[in-house]
């Protein structure tokens, strides 16, 4: 088996060939699904746990604290301890709640990022779903999560939850627009929604550098809108612990609460991944035009590290927002979207079209 950390195509193909050689074709396909599913499950759990740990540490350092220090070296096993605690907790269901929807909501919330993560290109060849509407698929699927939030708020039979859910519904529907429009700004340049094509189009430079000023504006709008879409501070209207106690997941406990918690962090990862792919070239190393020597050095760093490095940077930025700013009010949140982000976005899209037509981009 040929293993190459720069290009996973052959590695993936060899596994496929091997499966086909030992199993009948239908069984080989199913085995492939199972393997991928298990890989993603493990990946998501590890990702969720480490993101929770990272968030707690980053937050602590912003606040002049040390964060978790007790369990494991520098508290590294803290999140594992937390998840064990959550698993063993009693799953409470409040009287008067709609039990079926109450249980279903937690699963819908976790399923959405699960499906979206399949379309994320991790490295060359390491890409499960690479079809020509990849970006559309991610944005569409990840907004299914809001159904779960709405259901959770409604079925809890708690007024705080309901307010939280309604806020979150209004918020996600509005901010979806900005996310998609800011991504469209780059699609004008790439001409394709296929994520591998988008990555490939940045071989000689990332869009945020090549796309002139409109790309930078689009990136900032994307960051703001996607923070809002993932219900994170300063846009955590749906939770708003100082107003609505915990918003839509007030009534959840134990493992179902963990689902909400995990989903938030996986969503964060997906947003950062989309941002990194569209604006920062995904797994593509930093290339500057035809400057061969520099490009070769950059190529030496494996693409998977590039990809996760970019994601880490974006996640850090989002965390920085969360741990600095006060929360907006719901009407201000909508004002920001409809009065500021959306008009700017539309003008920006026009500008980008102009740039693309005149060939001003690099």
């Amino acid at each position: 088996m040929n293993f190459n950390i720069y290009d996973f195509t052959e590695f993936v193909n060899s596994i496929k060939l091997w499966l086909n050689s030992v199993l009948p074709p239908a069984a080989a396909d199913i085995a492939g699904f199972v393997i991928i599913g298990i890989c993603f499950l493990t990946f998501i759990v590890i990702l969720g746990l480490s993101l929770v740990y990272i968030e707690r540490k980053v937050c602590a350092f912003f606040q002049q604290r040390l964060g978790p220090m007790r369990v494991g070296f520098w508290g590294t096993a803290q999140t594992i301890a937390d998840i064990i605690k959550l698993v063993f907790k009693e799953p409470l269901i409040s009287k008067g709640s709609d039990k079926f929807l109450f249980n279903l909501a937690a699963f819908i919330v976790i399923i959405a990022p699960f499906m979206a993560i399949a379309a994320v290109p991790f490295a060359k060849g390491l890409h499960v779903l690479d079809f020509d509407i990849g970006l559309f698929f991610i944005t569409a699927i990840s907004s299914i999560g809001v159904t779960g939030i709405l259901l959770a708020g409604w079925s809890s039979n708690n007024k705080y939850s309901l307010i939280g859910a309604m806020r979150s519904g209004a918020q996600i529907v509005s901010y979806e627009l900005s996310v998609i429009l800011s991504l469209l700004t780059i699609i004008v340049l790439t001409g394709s929604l296929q994520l591998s094509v988008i990555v490939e189009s940045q071989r000689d430079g990332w869009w945020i550098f090549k796309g002139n000023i409109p790309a930078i504006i689009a990136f900032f709008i994307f960051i703001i809108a996607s923070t809002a879409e993932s219900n994170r501070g300063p846009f955590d209207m749906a939770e708003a612990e100082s107003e609505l106690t915990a918003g839509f997941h007030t009534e959840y406990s134990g493992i179902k609460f963990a689902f909400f918690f995990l989903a938030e962090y996986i969503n964060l990862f997906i947003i950062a991944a989309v941002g990194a792919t569209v604006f920062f070239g995904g797994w593509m190393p930093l290339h500057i035009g035809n400057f061969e020597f520099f490009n070769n050095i950059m190529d030496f760093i494996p693409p998977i590290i590039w990809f996760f490095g970019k994601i880490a940077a974006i996640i850090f930025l989002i965390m920085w927002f969360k741990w600095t700013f006060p929360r907006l009010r719901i009407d201000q949140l909508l004002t920001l979207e409809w009065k500021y982000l959306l008009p700017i976005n539309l003008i920006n899209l026009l500008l980008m079209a102009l740039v693309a037509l005149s060939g001003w981009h690099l």
Partner: protein
Amino acid sequence: MGLKNYISDIYNGVKSLITGMKVTGHYFTHPGEIVTQQYPENRDTLKMFERFRGEVVLIHDENNMHKCTGCSACELACPNGSIEIISGKEIDPETGKSTKIIDTFVYHLSMCTFCNLCILSCPTDAIKMAQGFEHSVFDRSKLTKVLNKPGSKIMPGIK
């Protein structure tokens, strides 16, 4: 005009946000300024201030002698009834007079508000506030303490 306001709104808003991020960013990049004290680990170096009021103790010297005459001034001064003095009688072998001494000095830590009034009221400075603050126990009855050590006697010359 409206457009100008619109743009200056955005500019000022973004600027104020960046100012805030600068502050948190400064602390993120200066981990030396972290103020966390890791409490149970730093027990050896943790020193309370000498006036810190943690609990009432009856001062005993190395010969197991204390200065409490059992006058129960502290019992009267206490607003919460956390001190109970059960006094006994002792007959002086030389003079044959009976004097009042303490039998048990009961201190209910669970009722104490650490107001220091008992210390101020003590005429012989027999009690003081100690610095211990780790009072948590699993059984509430353990918070009722007897302050005079077994076999302790009153110091000679204290009236």
